[in-house]
């Protein structure tokens, strides 16, 4: 009992310590954050001269507006039409347009009763945006033009359209008269895609110098085209002109139809649009007041604006959460927002705290399904005790994301959809994780990376759908009730597609976006009534949920009495013929749909291909279905039965290797007549961590990775010989004994021995290769406790000039024999947590190999780099497709400035990244429940990198870089738990190869960003730039290695398969690629001055096509190192180790022609040609 008590005490101390440490870190971090924020805010400030310019023009504009003449009021629609009949300006009536003879309310134009600046420019929270920003000016319609009932049936909308047409018309005249029309232009536009509200957009264009001095002067004073600003003139209504109660979200305000089904239906979107237009000034005042009372509010608004912009959130219809909505939420939380109305934010908070806490609030609260926030923006409310801003949990009768303003009856989130709300929460969640990261600086991922720049990185799958042939069917669905709910066909279509996708994919996606294509134009001429575009196609962009996306069954309602009939009908109705009854293991009978996965089509794509035509029209066409599969299809299929139906993340073929190994493991472990007992048999081959380029296929021994490495250890003994050569032979003796045992008792196994060259200068290593009856091969190396000592002794004993070489040998030993075990275990575990990692990594390796780079990098290094987008997601989600993962790796490489930045990887599983819940726990319950939590946390934190570890890695990097500032000896510093030194795997790479990798990634990223992913770009992406090398050696071997590498040729289901090993192991060499050995000798001979590259996987060489040829092609390239590059000469010395020719009696240059000639004869019967570039 005592023991357990002291354990609890110890845990308590740790918990407190941890809390203190955490707070210190938090404080430290927020200080750094503060500096970064200051810098950022400074950078996004509007240039002062632009502000001055705009202010000057705004004054002028104000004067112009004040000068507009009153026209008349109480005019009929006919009068108005008569007036505009011969004018260039058209009234931008919304649909349904008022009809003369049937419209009995009155129109008119009188000068605005109030002109005011609104929006971010007025609040001074605007930021500089490279594409230009806009300034909103509100023109308040005189109250005399509006009747109390005008909120109904579009009346106010039409009155406003007439009003804005007058403004446009009259403004045009006065611009003309003043001379400003030379460079000031007017257009109509819709604010926030609100088709009910046309605004007048004022922009400025560049003009050539004129001889007219008046225009010249005006141009100088008022032309603001350089600032890229535009001005939106918006017509608003006086506050309280309508009874707000009547426009609440659940009220009906459109009563045009006689249809009973439509009667009383809430018109929340319409109500929202009408109401929000009457309260523009109100919210401005509200925010202004908060800004005054809360010092950091303005800065927090700027942060929010940047954060939203980088993620593509806007106030537009459909997205519905822009800077305004964020600001209102933040302002409201200063007044309450908790379950009891308790304040979430305090006026003294820093901008960082305001921002972070608001983000956390978005994550924690649910404004959609399970609650809503009620706020109160009443400026006159004096009763402080009245908690009016309060979160209501467990109910949301509004059936949409809701922040309801009690005072204005406006749902601030009125333009959001369930989907955009989901996306908001997802991004907020990611940001919160980043903000909570105590270890790594996440500022960049939170504020600086623009997720919208490359959609292929933001989404796992992008599906383009042509609906041009379905529009008739779809418009039939646009019934009167849909009309009053969604107001426009476009908005209806958007929501309809959303609903179909949402219902069909459900949990399979984390979030998705729909973009109706062909809507790029935002402005239209004032002679047009509306912006006309046809929605011929849409783009569906998905972020997958990998736990769910590949599930083969979509479960519906149970078939029993408790299930409502409607539910079953709805399921059947949605899924059509696909819905069927299935009995599950637990005995339940459930309506379900069963899908098939395949190597090229994900289940999600299969579902979409089925369901979209069902609901949108059978003539629908997925336009890019080929492109979607391109990247994944680049991975070769294994030549095994059923390969085509295996999903891309399926690991079955790898498990077969494991199983075969386990059998062998048992046999060897059971041998009790060995001089020393077996202690460990550790598999370290890449198939054990699922990262081998080719999937394992039985008997496919031409695969250069066919033999999977294994490390064998015996019980410790002091008798191992004290000399490397003898030690290796002693190991061989042990393996020979195993060999004899296997031959005797397990003749189904074949065994051979070979020399091993994996440790430079150690020519004595022997490996035992065991070929199993299941068709797999394992290469055994023996590790003893003596090895390390002997390698170190050799370093100690050698000449100084050889020390570096031998240190390299030692590193290689550590790599192959020791670290490999941990590396394999970590990568294997993580592969299970990140389902797309393994296929992505394999494709990345294939990409490197197609560029002849793979053989230059230890595969551990490649695998660690490939892990980057998975364990360090930044602002993105975990890659949910091979395409997404692959592009993120390339993107990372293209941006990685390895000379100055280390890559530090926290190799942990995703659930451990997600510390949100822990945080919640530790903040709320820490005091009550200390010991329990501390133990829980300790365990988790011990897995995650600590700040000190992180700092240590960084220090390691700085020290290593200091001794090697140009990156000549090592370039990539990749530190993780697996290798704290950071250079175990990267100390032996040549600078030009590292530079080439970076350059290639940049080119690849540019290509994809500009041209997207299609057949042509994919081909380019995987084609080596052979012209960049100094010479090329084309290799041609009169043999086909395709089938014997286990690759399925295209267009067939299963090719002829090899079903056994040759009787004599030595016969296997006939099916092995000789390129490897040719290059090995070229390297040994010429490697001092030439870097040779070749493709490791000969079958994957593009020249071999789909493997139908009887010959195989490979390529070897040569790159001359800087000393002799481009015919450079150097002083002749006998330690040059180069084939040189004299230039004069002192200098020589590389005799490249002679070298190439030698190479021709060296590989005479496998070299097709040697080409000098």
């Amino acid at each position, binding site marked *: 009992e005592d023991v357990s008590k002291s354990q609890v005490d110890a845990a308590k101390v740790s918990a407190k310590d941890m809390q203190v440490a955490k707070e210190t870190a938090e404080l430290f971090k927020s200080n750094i954050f503060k500096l970064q924020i200051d810098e950022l805010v400074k950078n996004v400030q509007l240039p002062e001269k632009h502000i001055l310019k705009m202010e000057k023009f705004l004054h002028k504009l104000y004067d112009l507006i004040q000068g507009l003449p009153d026209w008349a009021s109480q005019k009929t629609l006919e009068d108005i039409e008569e007036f505009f009949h011969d004018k260039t300006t058209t009234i931008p009536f919304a649909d349904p347009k008022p009809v003369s003879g049937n419209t009995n309310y009155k129109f008119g134009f009188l000068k605005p009763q109030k002109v005011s600046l609104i929006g971010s420019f007025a609040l001074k929270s605007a930021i500089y945006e490279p594409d230009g920003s806009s300034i909103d000016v509100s023109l308040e319609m005189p109250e005399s033009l509006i009747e109390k009932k005008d909120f109904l049936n579009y009346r106010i909308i039409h009155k406003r359209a007439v009003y804005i047409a007058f403004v446009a018309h009259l403004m045009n005249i006065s611009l003309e008269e003043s001379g400003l029309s030379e460079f000031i232009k007017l257009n109509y536009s819709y604010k926030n895609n609100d088709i009910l509200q046309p605004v007048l957009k004022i922009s400025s264009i560049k003009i050539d110098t004129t001889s007219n001095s008046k225009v010249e002067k005006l141009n100088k004073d008022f032309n603001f085209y350089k600032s890229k600003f535009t001005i939106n003139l918006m017509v608003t209504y006086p506050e309280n002109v309508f009874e707000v109660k009547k426009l609440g979200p659940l009220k009906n305000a459109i009563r045009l139809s006689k249809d009973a089904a439509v009667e009383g239906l809430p018109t929340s979107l319409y109500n929202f649009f009408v109401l929000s237009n009457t309260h523009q000034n109100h919210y401005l005042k509200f925010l202004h007041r908060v800004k005054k009372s809360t010092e950091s509010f303005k800065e927090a608004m700027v942060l929010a604006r940047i954060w939203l912009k980088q993620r593509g959130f806007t106030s537009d219809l459909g997205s519905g959460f822009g800077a305004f909505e964020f600001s209102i939420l933040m302002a409201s939380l200063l007044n309450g927002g908790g379950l009891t109305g308790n304040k979430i934010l305090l006026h003294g908070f820093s901008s960082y705290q305001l921002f972070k806490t608001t983000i956390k609030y978005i994550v924690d609260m649910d404004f959609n399904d399970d609650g809503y926030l009620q706020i109160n923006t009443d400026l006159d409310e004096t009763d402080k005790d009245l908690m009016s801003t309060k979160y209501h949990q467990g109910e949301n009768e509004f059936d949409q994301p809701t922040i309801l303003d009690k005072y204005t009856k406006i749902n601030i989130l009125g333009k959001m959809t369930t989907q955009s709300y989901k996306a908001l929460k997802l991004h907020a969640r990611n940001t919160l994780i980043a903000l909570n990261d105590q270890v790594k600086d996440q500022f960049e991922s939170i504020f600086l990376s623009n997720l919208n720049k490359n959609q292929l990185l933001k989404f796992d799958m992008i599906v383009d759908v042509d609906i041009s042939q379905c529009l008739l069917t779809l418009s039939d669905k646009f019934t009167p009730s849909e009309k009053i709910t969604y107001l426009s066909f476009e908005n209806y279509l958007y929501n309809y597609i959303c609903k179909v996708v949402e219902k069909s994919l459900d949990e399979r996606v984390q979030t998705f976006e729909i973009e109706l294509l062909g809507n790029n134009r935002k402005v239209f001429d004032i002679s047009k009534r509306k912006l006309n575009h046809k929605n011929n196609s849409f783009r569906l962009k998905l972020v997958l949920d990998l736990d769910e996306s590949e599930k083969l069954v979509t479960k519906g309602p149970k078939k029993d009495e408790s299930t409502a009939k409607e539910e079953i009908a709805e399921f059947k109705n949605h899924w059509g013929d696909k819905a069927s009854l299935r009995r599950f293991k637990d005995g339940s009978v459930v309506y379900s749909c069963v899908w098939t996965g395949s190597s090229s089509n994900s289940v999600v794509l299969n579902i979409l291909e089925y369901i979209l035509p069902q609901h949108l029209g059978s003539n629908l066409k997925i336009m890019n279905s080929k492109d979607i599969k391109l990247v994944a299809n680049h991975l070769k299929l294994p030549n095994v039965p059923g390969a085509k139906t295996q999903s891309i993340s399926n690991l079955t073929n790898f498990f077969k290797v494991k199983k075969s190994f386990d059998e062998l493991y048992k046999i060897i472990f059971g041998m009790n007549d060995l001089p020393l007992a077996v202690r460990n048999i550790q598999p370290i081959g890449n198939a054990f961590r699922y990262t081998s380029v080719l999937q394992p296929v039985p008997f496919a021994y031409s695969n250069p990775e066919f033999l999977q490495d294994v490390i064998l250890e015996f019980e410790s003994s002091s008798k191992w010989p004290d*000399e490397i050569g003898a030690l290796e032979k002693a190991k061989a003796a042990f393996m020979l004994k195993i060999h004899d045992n296997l031959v005797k008792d397990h003749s189904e196994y074949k065994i051979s021995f*070979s020399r091993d060259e994996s440790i430079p200068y150690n020519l004595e290593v022997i490996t035992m290769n065991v070929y199993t009856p299941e068709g797999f091969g394992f290469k055994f190396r023996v590790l003893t406790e003596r090895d390390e000592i002997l390698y170190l002794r050799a370093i100690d004993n050698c000449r100084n000039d050889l020390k570096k070489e031998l240190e390299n040998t030692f590193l290689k030993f550590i790599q192959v024999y020791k670290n490999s075990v941990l590396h394999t275990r970590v990568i294997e575990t993580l592969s299970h947590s990140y389902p797309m990692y393994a296929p992505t990594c394999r494709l990345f390796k294939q990409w490197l190999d197609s560029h002849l780079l793979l053989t230059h990098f230890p595969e551990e290094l490649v695998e660690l780099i490939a892990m980057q987008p998975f364990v360090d997601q930044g602002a993105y989600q975990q890659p949910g497709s091979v395409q997404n993962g692959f592009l993120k790796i390339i993107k990372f490489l293209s941006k990685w400035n390895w000379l100055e930045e280390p890559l530090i990887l926290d190799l942990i599983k995703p659930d451990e990244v997600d510390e949100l819940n822990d945080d919640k726990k530790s903040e709320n319950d820490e005091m009550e429940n200390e010991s329990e939590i501390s133990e829980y946390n300790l365990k988790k934190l011990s897995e995650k990198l600590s700040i000190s570890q992180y700092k240590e890695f960084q220090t390691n990097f700085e020290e290593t870089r200091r001794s090697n500032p140009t990156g000549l000896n090592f370039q990539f510093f990749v530190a993780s738990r697996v290798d704290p030194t950071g250079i175990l795997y990267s100390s032996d790479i040549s600078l030009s190869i590292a530079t080439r990798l970076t350059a290639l990634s940049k080119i690849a990223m540019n290509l994809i960003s500009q041209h997207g992913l299609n057949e042509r770009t994919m081909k380019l992406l995987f084609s080596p730039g052979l012209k960049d090398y100094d010479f090329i050696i084309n290799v041609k071997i009169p043999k086909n290695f395709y089938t014997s590498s286990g690759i399925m040729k295209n267009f067939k289901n299963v090719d002829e398969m090899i079903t056994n090993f040759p009787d004599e192991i030595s016969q*296997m060499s006939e099916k092995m690629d000789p390129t490897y050995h040719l290059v090995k000798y070229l390297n040994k001979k010429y490697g001092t001055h030439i870097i040779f590259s070749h493709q490791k996987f000969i079958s994957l060489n593009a020249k071999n096509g789909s493997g139908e040829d009887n010959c195989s092609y490979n390529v070897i390239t040569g790159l001359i190192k800087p000393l002799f590059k481009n015919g450079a000469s150097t002083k002749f010395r006998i330690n*040059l180790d180069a084939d040189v020719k004299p230039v004069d009696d002192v200098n020589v240059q590389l*005799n490249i022609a002679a070298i190439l000639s030698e190479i021709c004869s*060296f590989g005479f019967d496998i070299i097709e040609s040697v080409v*000098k570039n």
Partner: protein
Amino acid sequence: MSDYKPKGVTVMKNGFIPVPFKLEKQEKLLNTTKKINHYIYLKKHQSSNNKDENTIFIYNLPLLTNFETLTLNLNNIIKEYKGQVIFDNTSFKTDEFKIESIDLNGLSSDYILDEENNTINPKQAMGGSEYKGENRPYNTTFLKVLDQSSLKSFFNCINKYVKSLNKDFDKHVIDWTLHKETSKMPTLTDFQNFYNPLPVQYLKDLVLDTMTYFQDRENYAK
């Protein structure tokens, strides 16, 4: 690309004579039409050790040059200029693929024997800054001739050959030929044979021999 023919370089400043040979034309070598020459650099070996007298120090032999090929080609020059040289094959050794460049085994061992069968420390035997043993740079070799007069005759011919090239390079330059009986370029099968396993019996014998020899030395040291 033009193959540079240095006019007048008959000897490098540091005493090496660049001796060109014309390489056989390779049909597979594209984009290079000019005749290609290989340069071997020769110098009399300077050494205080008697063993090393009458030795030529050679830099940059062509690929896979063995004693027979080298002397065949040098003899072609000597014949041309009527010299009398007898080559001694005892000291000729190349390691162009750098297989023996570092003796890891020796460096890790406490049981290396010197010529008098005394156990010596590897530091003493192999390394350390005080090490004075053989330290031949890569891409170089020694070629011994029988005696002083052979050596004289050799350099005589070489110098004449090199000088003759200044008059008419193409006419006088000698073709590099491979000694057919002893040397051949590797084939596809040769490259693939590198994948062949070690015969088990061979390996068993090798292990036994190595272990016996090691134990002998270990016992000796004890």
